[in-house]
């Protein structure tokens, strides 16, 4: 029988909500300090150049300039990175991408500094550009970082079975190329950070920081201080989605260098243009898939070759592409798999972590491919997926047997189908499908036969996509998290975990977990400000790991306290072993009779000298990985999802209208219903934007869309109904089996929309986003050097 929860699974109002609806919540730029200075960045409008000299003479005596900071002022490490130290804090030899910063000027008036920065004369020589990732591994390619001897950032191979044998056993072979685009996180709060010098040579940083412990490590290295002298405090974070990691580490380090040099608090805050220019993005992928399958629909072999544009710096590319290599086949059991995923350097904006993290790209490819297989065999999309889909005991592409949890893939699929009447709609739309007319761009005047009857202009389509996703970091690294819980003698409590609140509602989720264990109200728990000096390093708040790992740590902390209180009760009330103690509704029951209240018990504990403060810990089970064969137990558990998109396509303009998206997910146990639904609504909307409109384009490496007038994200008018459905599967890890949800909600949407568009218009599209250019024109209005993928 399922455990009956008192708070878990109910809709709970977020802990930081009142401050956020009244304007009291302080975000990074809302902090001011006595004697505070601002710092403004120096850049050149060029993607690849050798810096010959920088002449500050025109501004250095200006009274608005308090200090000039360059590479020379860095006391410690001059190049940093979350994985590889290849990104200069300040460039002194060359720039490799237009976001690069050469130095900064510091003073009281940000406005004056911004006008002065243009008077600094930088003498530079432009270098040849590498913007096409497909050329980056050619023998004569220019090297972005010559010391690395190659533009290859990482290569992840995966070899399972014998693909050639699998292809010969197949009745059909299908080979396709897909491309996905560069996109921006578009958190509404631009980056901001302040560094405040502390006594004894320490430094305090307050900023819009996603991963305070990563930031601490990098700041400490740059200013050459031990970790304990660097205190990182996370301000309320105005959205991140993976985006406020590397960029914020570097910004915090720059602010720290300036603060220590000037002995003043120094703030850096970015305009939207600077934010888009300098921050990393989602990797564009070029994906080649070759699949062999039998008449029955059974897939025999899959060969996958993926190229990811890592841009100018390594950032998270090795881990992003590692998730891709694990999940590239999609959630299917395939005997023979041969996958290569490579990430390469170019002069393009650098790419790193973004919600989804290497999964939305292969899902777009493999789920398009599954629909193509279905169409070739005259099947419906669900049939081919049911034949190949992962089940309990299935072996994944990495050779991992799925066990110890409900493998709910086919369950989420059938639930989604039932809720949308999928099959009937899919078959009906397909009957009505009309092939899009081929547009001859050399003949701009249409012939009579090309005019469309207005009734036929709008076509309806329905499409689905399914996925499995490894939870938490997997074989990326050590995976553990901590939580600090301290119960006060009136029954109220302080709670803090080493993971960060990025807006997703982690404070509330963790408060619910602690409250559930102790039988108290989550409102009795005060969640402390995230601060690296008060709680152990818990790794980064990424990979949809917070509820699973941090929640596990909170539950552990609460259980430690609970055990101590139970021992106290047994002793004080002289209970026997068989007496049952229950903590419920802020009261204590023995054999269903109330003996005390939680506050009274805490007072008693204080009087008896019982320690009611503790650090909880949760460490993931071990995973293993062979980097030469791509085989191993990549993640300790998985989640499953299915999205069904119902769209209308305007054949004249290529617009895709999103009527309804049904999102079925298995996140294990839902802790906060309100928060979980919010994750689905938000993730689906971001995923839909990725599918139909979002794209960062570059011109000689320089981003064209530097603000929200050019870079479009979905508004309230652009998204139709979203229907979240949760299937709660059994799981042995995490708090009561709660696992990941944040990223699964985003990764499927674009693929489902693409399949729906194909269902509507009878034509397959191979490149995201599905906009006018892709659907109607078949070419980019603003040409890029990179050739778009195509049906081969």
């Amino acid at each position, binding site marked *: 029988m399922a455990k009956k929860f008192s708070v878990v699974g109910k809709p709970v*109002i977020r802990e930081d*909500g009142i401050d956020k609806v009244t*304007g*009291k919540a302080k*975000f990074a730029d809302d902090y001011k300090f006595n004697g505070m200075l601002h710092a403004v960045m120096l850049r050149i409008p060029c993607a690849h150049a050798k810096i010959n000299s920088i002449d500050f003479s025109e501004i250095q005596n200006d009274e608005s300039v308090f200090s000039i900071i360059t590479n020379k002022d860095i006391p410690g490490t001059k190049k940093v990175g979350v994985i590889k130290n290849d990104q200069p804090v300040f460039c002194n030899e060359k720039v490799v991408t237009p976001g690069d910063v050469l130095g900064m000027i510091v003073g009281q008036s940000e406005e004056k500094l911004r006008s002065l920065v243009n008077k600094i004369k930088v003498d530079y020589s432009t270098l040849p550009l590498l913007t096409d990732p497909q050329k980056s591994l050619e023998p004569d390619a220019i090297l972005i970082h010559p010391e690395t001897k190659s533009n290859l950032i990482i290569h992840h191979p995966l070899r399972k079975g014998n693909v050639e044998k699998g292809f010969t056993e197949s009745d059909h072979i299908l080979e396709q190329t897909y491309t996905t685009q560069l996109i921006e996180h578009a958190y*509404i*709060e631009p980056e901001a950070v302040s560094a405040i010098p502390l006594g004894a040579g320490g430094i305090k940083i307050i900023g819009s920081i996603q991963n305070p412990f990563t930031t601490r490590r990098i700041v400490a290295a740059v200013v050459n201080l031990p970790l304990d002298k660097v205190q990182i405090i996370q301000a309320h974070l105005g959205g991140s989605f993976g985006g406020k990691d590397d960029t914020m580490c570097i910004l915090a380090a720059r602010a720290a260098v300036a603060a220590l040099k000037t002995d003043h608090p120094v703030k850096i805050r970015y305009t939207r243009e600077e934010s888009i220019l300098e921050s990393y993005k989602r990797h564009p992928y070029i994906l080649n898939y070759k699949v062999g399958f039998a008449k029955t629909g059974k897939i025999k072999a899959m060969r996958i070759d993926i190229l990811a544009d890592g841009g100018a710096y390594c950032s998270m590319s090795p881990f992003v592409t590692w998730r891709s290599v694990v999940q590239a086949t999609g959630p299917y059991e395939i005997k023979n798999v041969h996958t290569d995923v490579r990430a390469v350097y170019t002069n393009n904006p650098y790419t790193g972590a973004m919600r989804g993290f290497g999964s939305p790209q292969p899902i777009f490819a493999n789920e398009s491919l599954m629909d193509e297989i279905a169409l070739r065999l005259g099947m419906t999309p669900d049939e081919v997926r049911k034949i190949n889909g992962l089940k309990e005991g299935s072996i994944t592409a990495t050779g991992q047997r799925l066990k110890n949890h409900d493998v709910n893939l086919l369950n989420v699929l059938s639930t989604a189908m039932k809720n949308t009447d999928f099959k009937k709609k899919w078959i009906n739309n397909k009957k009505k499908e009309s092939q899009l007319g081929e547009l001859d761009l050399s003949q701009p005047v249409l012939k009579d036969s090309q005019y469309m009857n207005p009734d036929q202009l709008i076509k309806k389509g329905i499409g689905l996509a399914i996925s499995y996703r490894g939870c938490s970091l997997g074989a990326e690294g050590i995976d553990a998290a901590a939580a600090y819980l301290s119960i006060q003698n009136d029954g109220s409590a302080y709670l803090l975990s080493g993971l960060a609140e990025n807006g997703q*509602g982690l404070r509330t989720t963790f408060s619910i977990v602690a409250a559930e264990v102790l039988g108290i109200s989550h409102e009795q728990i005060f969640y402390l400000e995230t601060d690296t000096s008060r709680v152990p390093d818990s790794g980064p708040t990424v990979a949809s790991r917070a509820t699973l790992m941090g929640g596990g740590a909170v539950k552990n902390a609460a259980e430690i306290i609970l055990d101590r209180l139970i021992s106290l009760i047994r002793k004080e009330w002289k209970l026997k072993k068989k007496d049952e103690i229950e903590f419920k509704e802020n009261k204590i029951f023995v054999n269903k009779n109330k003996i005390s209240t939680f506050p009274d018990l805490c007072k008693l504990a204080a009087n008896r000298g019982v320690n009611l403060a503790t650090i909880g810990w949760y460490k993931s089970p071990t995973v293993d990985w062979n980097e030469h064969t791509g085989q191993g137990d990549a993640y300790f558990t998985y989640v499953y999802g299915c999205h069904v998109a119902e769209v209308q396509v305007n054949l004249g303009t290529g617009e895709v209208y999103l009527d309804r998206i049904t999102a079925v997910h298995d996140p294990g146990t839902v802790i906060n219903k309100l928060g979980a639904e*919010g994750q689905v609504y938000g993730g689906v909307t971001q995923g839909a934007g990725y599918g139909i409109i979002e794209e960062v384009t570059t011109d000689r490496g320089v981003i064209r869309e530097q603000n*929200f007038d050019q870079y479009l994200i979905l508004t309230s008018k652009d998204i139709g109904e979203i229907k979240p459905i949760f299937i709660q599967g059994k799981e042995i890890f995490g708090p009561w089996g709660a696992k990941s949800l944040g990223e699964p909600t985003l990764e499927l949407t674009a693929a489902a929309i693409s399949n729906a568009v194909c269902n509507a218009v009878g034509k397959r599209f191979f490149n995201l986003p599905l906009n006018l250019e892709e659907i109607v024109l078949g070419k980019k209005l603003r040409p890029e050097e990179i050739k778009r993928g195509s049906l081969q």
Partner: protein
Amino acid sequence: MKVNFTLNGKKVQAETAQSIRLLDLLRDEFNLTGTKEGCGIGECGACTVLLNGYAVNSCLVLAAQIDGSEILTIEGVAGEKELHPLQKNFLKFGAVQCGFCTPGMILSAYSLLGQKQDPTEEEIKDAIAGNLCRCTGYKQIIEAVKETAKEMHAGSYTSVNDKR
């Protein structure tokens, strides 16, 4: 130059200059940091305030233009003891995640409800179409505004300015 205006119900005076935007005046002179800057070009709506009852992007209004006007910011929305119904429903429906767009969202909705007692879903979407949100997908925001309108319509609140 000096400007005199009403800020969250109180008459105030401030010294300003030509280059100062209403957004800067609110954040820097009055320390009302609930009004946020997200883009600086009137696209994201994070800096939305009410100017004589209408939602405006305060990054596009010069401080000098507001002489004699009434300005309402997020800090002036709640009553002395209790939250405004819009704020309550934003919390109840989960319309807040990171919270950066929330002040602007609430003020756009406030302006709508000041003009229309019983807006349709389309009208709600129109009213907040100038406020970008990257976290919520807008669904719970729309629900919260709808519910507030319904409560007001049912007479639980006589007007949007009734801060019970």
